[in-house]
């Protein structure tokens, strides 16, 4: 090496004080064409951080990163695309695939910086001079990489389905399911929204590749009520789906059901695997609904002995005794229950804790106890004369229908309530009326306007198709009884508003706009509550409560160290939330009984 070689790098210092050779605007005013693929723009408000742009970029020029001031929330990952112009080839695939249309390109193409790192930036967050450029490339309307409309789920027409309790929807064929699965861009935003965090993109991928056994394994990793949720899940995932922004959300629930339908039940056990070796620990679960049975599923697989006590003759809780068979066939529910029981869970049916067995006995005999009793009792309006014998609670009638218990079928029924339970009882009675009287005479009255009913839009649409009359903005004021003591109607006043400026209940009525809805039966479907009398006075006093519900910590544990609570009775009604609750408490119970904590508690 010569002295020249050693000194030559230092000769570069002479350029330190000279003007840069690259100058801004060397070509004067020569704008890019109207649809030029220039520098990126991103509408930060529209962007949901799905990362589809990152996934499609062939050059690895896009990274999804958190940005200050953009929080993670339902349907938005909080991440935003950062683009590296050292890698970008301006192909615009990222723009073409963008699920919300937030990512576009300006027609600006001249940008001079002395700092090379500046060419790695986050459009829409890092301000640039082309942010307001009107021209540039946007995805043309007819140029979509993914189909906007979902594959239609075929179902029975109203005239056919009103004659029976047969399941309404048919399920996807393999070809239909693959087409629908192809619409998914696997962004995974749905996973965070699902209460039990199902591996949705992965099981949709299993549908795409036709590997249903892999799909089933993925389903049961997080949801032992996959048969149920494949049919009646409230599908929060679909409300967060990236596809909904410029089309219809992926039919996630139906794809889940499709996997279930493709795998013979005999194979379930083999796919799911055997439980761990016995631990010698025992857990009692009160209530065989989704929360209790999910916890049972997890705990028995961990090797613990699990005994479930169920007051009814069959398991499933409100999914069996509240949801009509045309929405959830009993054999689908039975498959989920049978699988859990096959793992070694013991279920004592027709056994009521509090009367048949005391809570204190469970505390003594088991290492931990889970209370998962649901919201089994119907609330009453207690409007004048509603104590009449022909005024029923919806949950009681739905229970009778499932249990095949006889009751006098109304010729003309008025339902109070605008939620799914109201629709369930209205549609169930309509089917029975059609079969028995060859005509449907059911009216649903609710305080809300129809656009704001709590019932699913599909439920309302199908109820109307089945001949049920919906009268909205009706506030119940009293039942009408004739001189002979017969119920002859429900009196309502027109509701002017329901909520106040803080979105809390503060109804106002127009009492001059009164309607008498003629009927021989009124059914109240306004809400439910949990009957906790099984706890007994002593335990009720010992427990901490939170505004009418048992107080639990984030793991579902009550103020008593041996007792947990989960599901509708503490979290409100929702099957998939109950499943998520079941997992959470099972994990907590496992930690407790696997440590010495439970033994110490027993000795003390």
């Amino acid at each position, binding site marked *: 090496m010569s002295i020249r070689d050693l000194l030559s790098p230092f000769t570069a210092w002479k350029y330190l004080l000279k003007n840069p050779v690259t100058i801004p605007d060397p070509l004067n005013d020569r704008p890019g064409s109207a649809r030029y693929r220039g520098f990126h723009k991103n509408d930060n408000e529209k962007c949901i951080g799905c990362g589809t742009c990152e996934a499609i970029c062939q050059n690895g020029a896009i990274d999804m990163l958190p940005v200050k001031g953009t929080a993670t929330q339902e349907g938005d990952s909080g991440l935003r695309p950062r683009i590296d112009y050292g890698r970008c080839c301006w192909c615009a695939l990222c723009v073409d695939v963008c699920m919300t249309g937030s990512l576009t390109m300006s027609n600006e193409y001249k940008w001079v910086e002395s700092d090379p790192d500046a060419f790695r930036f986050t459009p829409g967050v890092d301000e640039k001079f082309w942010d307001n450029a009107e021209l540039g490339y946007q995805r043309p309307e007819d140029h979509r990489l993914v189909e906007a409309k979902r594959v239609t789920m075929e179902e029975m027409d109203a005239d056919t389905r009103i004659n029976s309790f047969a399941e309404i929807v048919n399920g996807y064929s393999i070809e239909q399911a693959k087409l629908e699965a192809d619409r998914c861009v696997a962004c995974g935003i749905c996973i965070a929204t699902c209460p039990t965090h199902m591996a949705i993109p992965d099981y949709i991928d299993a549908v795409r590749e036709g590997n249903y056994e892999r799909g089933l394994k993925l389903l049961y990793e997080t949801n032992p009520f996959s048969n149920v949720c494949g049919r009646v899940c409230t599908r929060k995932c679909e409300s967060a789906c990236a596809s909904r922004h410029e089309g219809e959300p992926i039919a996630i629930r139906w794809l889940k059901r499709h996997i279930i339908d493709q795998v013979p039940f005999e194979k379930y056990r083999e796919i799911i695997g055997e439980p761990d070796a016995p631990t010698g620990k025992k857990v009692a679960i009160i209530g065989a609904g989704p929360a209790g049975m999910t916890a049972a599923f997890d705990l028995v697989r961990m090797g613990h002995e699990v005994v479930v006590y169920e007051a009814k003759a069959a398991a499933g809780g409100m999914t069996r005794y509240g949801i009509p068979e045309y929405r959830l066939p009993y054999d689908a529910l039975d498959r989920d229950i049978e699988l859990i029981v096959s793992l070694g869970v013991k279920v004592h049916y027709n056994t009521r804790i509090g009367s048949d067995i005391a809570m204190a006995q469970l505390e003594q005999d088991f290492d931990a106890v889970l209370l998962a009793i649901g*919201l089994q009792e119907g*609330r*009453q309006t*207690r409007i004048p004369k509603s104590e009449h014998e022909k005024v029923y609670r919806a949950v009681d009638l739905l229970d009778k229908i499932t249990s095949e218990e006889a009751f006098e079928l109304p010729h003309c029924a008025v339902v109070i309530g605008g*939620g*799914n*339970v109201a629709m369930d009882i209205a549609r169930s009675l309509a089917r029975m009326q059609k079969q028995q009287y060859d005509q449907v005479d059911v009216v649903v009255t609710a305080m809300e306007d129809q656009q704001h009913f*709590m019932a699913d839009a599909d439920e309302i649409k199908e109820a109307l198709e089945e001949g049920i009359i919906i009268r909205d903005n009706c506030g119940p004021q009293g039942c009408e009884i004739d001189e002979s003591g017969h119920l002859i109607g429900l009196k309502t006043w027109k509701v002017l508003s329901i909520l*106040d400026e803080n979105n*809390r*209940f*503060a*109804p106002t009525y127009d009492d001059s706009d009164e309607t008498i809805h003629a009927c021989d039966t009124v059914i109240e*479907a*306004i*809400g*439910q*509550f949990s009957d*906790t009398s099984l706890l007994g*006075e002593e335990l*009720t*006093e010992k*427990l901490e*409560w939170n*505004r*009418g519900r048992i107080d639990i910590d984030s793991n579902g544990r009550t103020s008593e160290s041996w007792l947990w609570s989960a599901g*509708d009775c503490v979290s*409100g*009604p929702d099957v998939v939330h109950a499943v998520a609750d079941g997992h959470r408490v099972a994990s907590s119970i496992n930690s407790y009984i696997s440590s010495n904590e439970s033994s110490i508690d027993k000795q003390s």
Partner: protein
Amino acid sequence: MTDNTEGHISGKDKLEACSTLKEILQQATEFERTARDFYAELAPKVSKKIRYLVDELVIEEQNHYDLFIDLANDPEVAAQIKQEIITPPSNKRFSDCIQLPDLGDNPDDQTILQYALGREQAAMDQYNSLADSTPEGPLKDVFTFLAQEETEHKNELEKIYYEVVHSGGV
């Protein structure tokens, strides 16, 4: 908690005769006191599950009671204390509320809230009527203020009622 200075004479009898601001305030104070004592006695009888409701009612009625005591001691109100006021038609219903009901051995949350709502409605109507029948001035302002207080409490109870009864909302 009991602050019974009324002896064996029923509150209702006393209320029927009232016609001055002093008597109106005494009536209102009695209304709040009986409510407070009623809820305070009810609290240990109800299930712990719903005791929060009754405890909240005790606190609210105590606040109202304190409010009336403060009003009676307010010099501006004291100056008007002998002013005659027409007893409104709502007075009967209002005074009836001093007759305490039997809610049973173990009333549920809905029963308690319905009773509390009924009381608040009666109080709201009473003060609104008094405000309507009183000429403009500080006295009218007092009744308007009281009516607003009762309205706010009733509205709050209605919201709680909805959240309790429609919990689950399915």
